[in-house]
């Protein structure tokens, strides 16, 4: 492997350096019909699952074909996307916020032809490469984080839990038979890089054991005051220990105060939390972001813990499927999952979804907890 220089000269790092130029302007990448009718769209329709029609004030029409992806994608896979775009959509392609692909085509026939083509592409292992769907009152692609593929704090995998879930709800990705859109999100630790705190259904990796303290290394690797300050519950304090006759500066942790957030680990690598038995998943439901009819809402924890069961997380997918099916059966048209639960009452939600209510579901974290307790005698048996 010979080193290939790009032109960068490490001896003169500033020579010819270009910085702070930001992204390219999006205008360079708009398909002609999009560019021409920018800001002048009249209305849209979903022709069939995965195919949208947009009609401009000028009368111009464009058809969008939407397909799911695994988000993690190789350059070989992206090259294949480019070939499809060159062949079908004039060399343009778009990614959505939820990691779907979108191709613009000119006619309904072309859209259907492209849909058939995309649905026909499979990996040797059997899965689709570009399944078409993700529109309207259904489940669209799951936004998710890095998990065991690439992050240092995950309590579970992201790509695997998402694959397992999407396999189970695939029918709802390709059809539009739910009462309203259902957004599923996944984050592999409480940092929630995937912002699952406002999703209809959320998969969240959680730790359940306090950090292990690597006393002999801690002082070399970490700033003790930073680790102490990082703990939101004040569980960490400076301390000293003696090991084999030597005294080390380190920290002590009041374990009963730990809520397993991993902040201390972020500040100090000598405080790892990961644990094969301790880690797993919490399931949250009923969040939303849109202002449609009801206000945006936070997701609520309805299952405090299911164990990690790689590769397919069967307990987790069973719970998700049950919640989704119960909602689909019971909710009114246009009613988001959380609005349905609010209407029937959460006590009913647990009953209908056959989920046990445990003490772990009663909030005990600071002030906001109070607003989740019931301050009325209106409740249901």
């Amino acid at each position: 492997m010979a080193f290939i220089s790009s032109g960068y000269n490490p001896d003169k790092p500033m020579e010819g350096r270009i910085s702070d130029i930001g992204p390219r302007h999006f205008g360079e990448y708009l398909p002609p019909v999009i560019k021409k009718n920018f800001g002048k769209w009249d209305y849209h329709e979903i022709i069939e699952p995965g195919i949208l029609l947009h009609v401009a004030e000028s009368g111009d029409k464009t058809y969008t074909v939407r397909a799911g992806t695994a988000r993690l994608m190789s350059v070989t896979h992206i090259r294949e996307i480019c070939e499809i775009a060159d062949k079908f959509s004039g060399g343009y392609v778009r990614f959505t916020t939820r990691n779907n692909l979108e191709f613009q085509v000119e006619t309904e026939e072309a859209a259907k032809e492209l849909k058939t083509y995309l649905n026909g592409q499979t990996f040797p292992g059997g899965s689709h490469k570009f399944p078409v769907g993700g529109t309207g009152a259904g489940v669209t692609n799951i936004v998710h984080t890095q998990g065991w593929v690439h992050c240092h704090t995950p309590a579970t995998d992201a790509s695997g839990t998402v694959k397992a879930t999407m396999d189970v709800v695939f029918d709802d990705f390709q059809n539009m038979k739910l009462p309203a859109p259902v957004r599923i999100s996944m984050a592999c630790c409480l940092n929630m890089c995937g912002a699952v705190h406002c999703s209809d259904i959320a998969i969240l990796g959680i730790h359940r054991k306090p950090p292990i303290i690597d006393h002999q290394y801690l002082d070399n690797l970490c700033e003790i005051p930073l680790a102490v300050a990082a703990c939101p519950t004040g569980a960490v304090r400076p301390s000293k220990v003696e090991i084999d006759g030597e005294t080390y500066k380190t920290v002590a942790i009041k374990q009963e105060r730990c809520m397993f957030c991993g902040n201390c680990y972020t500040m100090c690598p000598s405080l790892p939390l990961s644990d094969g038995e301790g880690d797993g998943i919490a399931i949250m439901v009923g969040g939303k972001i849109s202002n449609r009819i009801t206000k945006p809402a936070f997701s609520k924890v309805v299952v405090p813990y299911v164990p990690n069961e790689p590769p397919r997380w069967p307990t987790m997918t069973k719970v998700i499927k049950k919640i989704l099916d119960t909602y689909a059966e019971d909710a009114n048209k246009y009613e988001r999952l959380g609005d349905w639960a609010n209407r029937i009452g959460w006590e009913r939600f647990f009953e209908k979804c056959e989920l046990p209510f445990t003490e772990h579901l009663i909030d005990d974290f600071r002030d906001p907890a109070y607003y989740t307790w019931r301050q009325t005698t209106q409740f249901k048996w």
Partner: protein
Amino acid sequence: MAKHKTPLLDQLESGPWPSFVSDIKQEADARAKNEKGLDYQIPVDCPDDLLGVLEMSYTDGETHWKHGGIVGVFGYGGGVIGRYCDQPQMFPGVAHFHTVRVAQPNGKWYNTELLRNLIKIWELRGSGLTNMHGATGDIVFLGTTTPQLEEIFWELTHDLEIDLGGSGSNLRTPATCLGMSRCEYACYDTQELCYNLTQEYQDELHRPAFPYKFKFKFDGCPNGCVAAIARSDLSFIGTWKDPIKVDQEAVAAYVGGEIAPNAGAHAGRDWGAFDIQKEVVDLCPSNCISYEDGKLAIDHKECVRCMHCINTMPRALKVGDERGCSVLCGAKAPILDGPQMGSLLVPFMEVNKDDDYQAIKDLIENIWDWWMEEGKNRERIGETMKRLGMAALIDAAGVPVDARQVQEPRHNPYIFWKAEDVEGGWDRDINEFRKRHQR
């Protein structure tokens, strides 16, 4: 031939949803074959080793990535996230495996020329694996070694005129919905504003100077397709002031069943004939719609612009013409103090390209000045405003106080009056007081 046995991961190759395992395997094969004869700049077998280390995580239920060290390109504090494997002897291909964040074109439109140029760099100098895209919105190149970082940056900036995104305690890569490019609901040009602010604040993006991360997101309307209200420290959400425009003929076509409601979003199931009373009038959260004698009327003063009626009948109802955005502040995920939704700071703001969005920039800079002064280390602005109060933020932002900023007035009378609020101030003379009151 696969380098490592991956019996658990192999089970994720079946099932309909695209398999990331199959894709990584295909990349591993392509690199092993190397039909183009590339002189790969990082270990050829890194996709194999990534599968190997992931299989190990699947077996023992724990991550095998170490805490990131400080790596990056010269002069930047963000854009690269250091990553090292904790079993380097078993998986040397991914011993050093840093993430590079690359600025995406706003709205995530691409042509194949750009995509091919991006992957060309990453095929040669990285793992060949990406996230399209990360949750914040940027392109994520997964896995390279330290000596390649400057080379990648050089090629991105010189050959593609593209920069790195943000990471660390700075402005993160701003993200936007597709807005006016393909959505009739967009109340302002989200992409242009996103682009403009991204360019304006390049320094803040690349050189951490804030207490913690800061995110802008731009939604063209209250539907919130990039989730601005939940995921950004400052959310710019399109809105309007004047009446919703009603086309009565199209309303009749919905009622008559000629046009499917909600743009056909419910087509997968038989919900019965469209019932305008039940599906629109009764669901309006502010009860401001009526439908009598075949005419739809909206008492627009009472409308809260929730979008429901418009979403349900997009061909009959259009957002008004006096458009701008609402600005909300302080959304964040639960770490540290629990989740926060953005709180309404400015109910309506013009989005004016002609003066280069000056009003928005003034607002942003006022808020940053306050937060940089008052915010504690690793405190999101949502936490600062919770600690010091919404009124303090409003004051710092230099915007008027408005009943719209609250859901309801305060519950307690513990008002922090200031001396200047009270006639005569706070300085009083005890001797004067004693003239009126005996000890």
